[in-house]
């Protein structure tokens, strides 16, 4: 793959560059950002080092572009050769910017026909978490349940496939992952009681190759005797028998986050969302495999192992956050690890070949469990924080159902510092479960859950974490919940954005602030680093507050005179600092 070094090569993409699990720190970085999390290992680590802790104070904005869309700008741009690609929230416009020309004019823009009905079905704003580049094609998902492949050079649509059913509550917000000729996709809908699944589509035709459900009988889950070996809690049809009656059929377990892949083990890893509805008493049992990580073969979809972070989810603790693959040394032993920061407040380090739990420790304030038992793999739950209709109001559960970190805010891992970097939230909630009716096309929720600040005086933070020992190394406190993804580079600089609209660069070793800039709207997107056609390193980020935040702090919206909302009572003044608006920013020295 010699073309990997030539910036002029547009269609070329070396799979060798795509694999960058912890160990490969020394591999030369091709300067591109071709998949959502930079590489299959989902490290969001760039090997570029022109911007470093000594010169980052001089970072400044060089270019901006209004996307014309006001809802939450989660996800991240791609940079392939000399082109930057940006996908907007609904209506999911795809922009291709020419990075060779002054002002980065568009090469083209692609405007798919996306149903507006999706705006009611998407639980938490009309977000999109990004595209994937492979072999001259950009592949991404539309909110109304389609996947499209677009010619990266011409912007012409190659195929469009219906993958999800809006009428039954499915929308698609996640970023696809492509392995060989399979496009891996999943659907949101944990708030509509969907029957959660993961699918592979043929990269050349868009046709569905396999569908594996996240719960249900073994046959639906593609769990075959002999090849499905969960390290804990196995059993025939456990995906159905661990749910009261047939509650698994409407049990949620959506796929709205990130997928990673280990080419040596040939395993895909992804997390599943909450069990539905929010009243756990109508679905007695562990509810496997909601709130879990699943490992599958990309070729056949076969389930190889699964591990459940939150058995019998009582608190809407989705596990759809990124599964980061890193080669760590734990107690003197080299381990092929998978690291995951869960909504439930624990950071987990697993053996990614087997799913065995190695380390589990709180990275934020929590009280629903006391610890996680490393021999059984199960949390030791505080009975006083269990919820359900019969329990009435259960006060002071931490973290809130927004999560100790949002799965929409993926972490980064630097093989140089051997540290993970992530945004965190510090909110608790009073949880009152209510009876919910499953009525097709309408929400299946049933909860009242007002939030209040956790202890410590800050509502969010950006932290560095040692996943080998389960220890926080440093923490930068934030006044508001932190909702952006992380980036770390070989210059030992970590980047993130804040809800009140600051884009920040900090020293990856100490957390010390190096530079910050106010980017016009709250940041819920993920920074990337790339090498431009001029050979210089750049950092790009979306501004555009949204996701749950536009909905909760409804006074950050100014676009609708017929929809006027009060501020959220736990972040009364966020609208003083930011309002909606999607902007792409590029920073450099």
């Amino acid at each position, binding site marked *: 793959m010699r073309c990997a070094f030539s910036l002029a090569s547009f269609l070329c993409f070396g799979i060798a560059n795509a694999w960058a699990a912890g160990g490969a720190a020394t591999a030369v970085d091709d300067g591109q950002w071709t998949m959502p999390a930079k590489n299959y290992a989902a490290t969001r680590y760039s090997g570029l080092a022109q911007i470093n802790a000594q010169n980052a104070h001089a970072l400044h904005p060089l270019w901006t572009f209004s996307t014309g869309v006001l809802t939450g700008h989660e996800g991240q741009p791609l940079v392939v050769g000399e082109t930057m690609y940006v996908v907007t929230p609904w209506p999911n416009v795809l922009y291709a910017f020419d990075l060779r020309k002054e002002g980065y004019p568009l090469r083209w823009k692609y405007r798919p026909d996306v149903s507006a009905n999706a705006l009611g079905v998407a*639980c938490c704003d009309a977000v999109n978490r990004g595209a994937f580049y492979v072999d001259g094609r950009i592949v991404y998902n539309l909110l109304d349940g389609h996947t499209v492949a677009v010619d990266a050079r011409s912007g012409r649509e190659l195929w469009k496939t219906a993958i999800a059913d809006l009428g039954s509550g499915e929308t698609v917000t996640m970023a696809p992952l492509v392995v060989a000729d399979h496009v891996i996709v999943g659907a949101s809908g944990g708030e509509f009681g969907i029957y959660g699944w993961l699918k592979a589509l043929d990269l050349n035709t868009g046709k569905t190759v396999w569908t594996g459900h996240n719960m249900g009988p073994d046959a639906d889950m593609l769990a075959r005797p002999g090849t499905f070996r969960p390290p804990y809690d196995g059993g025939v049809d456990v995906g159905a028998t661990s749910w009261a009656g*047939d509650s698994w059929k409407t049990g949620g377990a959506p796929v709205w986050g990130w997928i990673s892949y280990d080419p040596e083990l040939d395993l895909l890893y992804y997390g599943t969302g909450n069990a539905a509805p929010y009243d756990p008493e109508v679905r007695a049992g562990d509810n496997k495999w909601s709130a879990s990580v699943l490992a599958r073969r990309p070729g056949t979809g076969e389930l190889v192992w699964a591990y459940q972070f939150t058995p019998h989810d009582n608190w809407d603790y989705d596990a759809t956050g990124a599964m980061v693959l890193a080669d760590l040394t734990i107690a003197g032993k080299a381990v092929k690890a998978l690291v995951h920061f869960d909504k439930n407040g624990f950071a987990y380090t697993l053996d990614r070949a087997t799913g065995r739990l190695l380390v589990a420790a709180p990275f934020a304030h929590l009280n629903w469990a006391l610890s996680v038992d490393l021999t059984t793999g199960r949390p030791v739950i505080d009975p006083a924080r269990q919820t359900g209709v019969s329990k009435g109001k259960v006060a002071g559960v931490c973290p809130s159902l927004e999560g100790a970190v949002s799965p929409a805010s993926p972490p980064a891992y630097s093989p140089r510092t051997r540290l993970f970097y992530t945004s965190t939230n510090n909110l608790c909630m009073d949880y009152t479960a209510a009876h919910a*009716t499953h*009525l097709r096309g*309408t929400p*299946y929720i049933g909860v009242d859950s007002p939030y209040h600040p956790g202890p410590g005086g800050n509502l969010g933070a950006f932290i560095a974490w040692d996943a080998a020992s389960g220890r926080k190394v440093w923490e930068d406190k934030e006044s508001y919940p932190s909702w952006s993804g992380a980036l770390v580079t070989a210059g030992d600089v970590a980047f993130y954005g804040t809800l009140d609209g600051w884009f920040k660069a900090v020293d990856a070793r100490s957390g010390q602030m190096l530079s910050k800039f106010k980017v016009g709207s709250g940041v819920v997107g993920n920074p990337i680093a790339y090498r431009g056609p001029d050979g210089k390193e750049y950092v790009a980020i979306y501004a555009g507050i949204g996701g749950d935040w536009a909905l909760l702090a*409804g006074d950050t919206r100014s676009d*609708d005179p*017929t929809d006027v909302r009060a501020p959220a009572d736990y972040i009364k003044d966020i609208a003083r600092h930011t309002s909606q608006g999607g902007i792409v920013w590029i920073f450099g020295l």
Partner: protein
Amino acid sequence: MSVRRTLVAFLACMALASCAREANPPAAATNAPPPAVTYEAHVAAGGIEPTGGVLRNPHAGDAAVAKSGAQLFTAMNCDGCHGAQGSGWVGPNLGDGRWRYGGADAEVFSSIYYGRPKGMPAFGGVLGADGVWTLVTYLRSLPAPGEVPTESWEQP
């Protein structure tokens, strides 16, 4: 399964509650498709209002029906999209006294019965006209806040 039964039981109970009231239209009238209405707020070309059907809320101002409507608002999962008491989530705030598609009884009826393009499901099929009027009566009973166009963070 049991969920369906609950829903059917709930609707039956709503029907009974309203059947007990004399003002209710008979079943046949409930099932006839309601006519299209004119929108009071639309600008009429040439200044000439189009003619449209007339829809009258049989429960207008009835506090007991408004109370059933509040229950129905939760039972039909309206709250999952519009927030508790319609305070706003993915669907707009329904208690702020401001309307995208008009706040007159007939206009609110049309929004709920037929749905709206940006994600409002049509509930006419599952609820029938009387169920929808029950919800209209509830929404119209929400106290619209006084004018709140200004939000200030300055110390007074």
